[in-house]
């Protein structure tokens, strides 16, 4: 960007709001079983909380909160968790992504509920990592 002149009030309000947005986003991810929500919605809100600091304080200072090299590995970790749950179901004896056969103890509906939770966490991590990675890549070549 051209010269970045930061404003004290904007930085103060953003620094105060960002942890609360992240907390509410985690609630949306984990409460997706009982209320509207789930992985995609919570992951996008987490990415918005990180982007708020990047827009308010500049990319240099915002690396203290979320370093730039962490974006794509988080995305890969999310995809790995999703595929890992499917393959664990195959290890337990069922078909791919058949959560009733996960190698843990419990009735079939409880195991399917646990499988849905793991899959939603994976999707949330992937969406967070990739949205921040796209944002950083699009702003990279503009003269930092």
């Amino acid at each position: 960007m051209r010269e970045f002149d930061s404003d004290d009030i904007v930085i103060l309000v953003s620094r105060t709001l960002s942890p609360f947005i992240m907390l509410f986003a985690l609630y949306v991810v984990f409460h997706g079983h009982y209320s509207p929500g789930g992985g995609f919605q919570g992951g996008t809100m987490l990415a918005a909380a990180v982007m708020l600091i990047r827009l308010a304080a500049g990319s240099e200072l915002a690396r203290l909160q979320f370093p730039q090299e962490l974006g794509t590995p988080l995305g890969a970790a999310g995809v790995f968790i999703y595929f890992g749950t499917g393959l664990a179901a195959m290890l337990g004896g069922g078909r791919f992504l058949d959560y009733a056969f996960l190698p843990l103890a419990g009735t079939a509906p409880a195991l399917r509920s646990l499988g849905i939770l793991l899959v939603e966490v994976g999707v949330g991590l992937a969406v967070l990592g990739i949205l921040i990675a796209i944002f950083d890549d699009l702003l990279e070549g503009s003269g930092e």
Partner: protein
Amino acid sequence: MKAVNFAVLALFGALLVFAASGLPDRGDPSAPLHRDTSLAGTPNAPSYYIRNAKKDAATPNMVTVILADYRGYDTMGEETVIFTAGLVCFLILRRGRKRNKEDKTS
């Protein structure tokens, strides 16, 4: 040239309005989309999902059960799509970064 553009847009809009008049009324519970058996006699997917989601997965939210359990394969493909888009953005814009770094070191 602009007249042709606007004529095409108007024709497109008129064709869609004419096609939308054949759709059933919005919100009609007896539309073929919302019934219990489809027009071919097979059980209808949305009403099966509504009736069996809480029993099969112990989760009240039907949208999450459909997204992650009944249609989990599609969600896996979609997550791969967003991961590939992130990688493609990085690979496309990488050469500019290298050239900027070379300008700084030379």
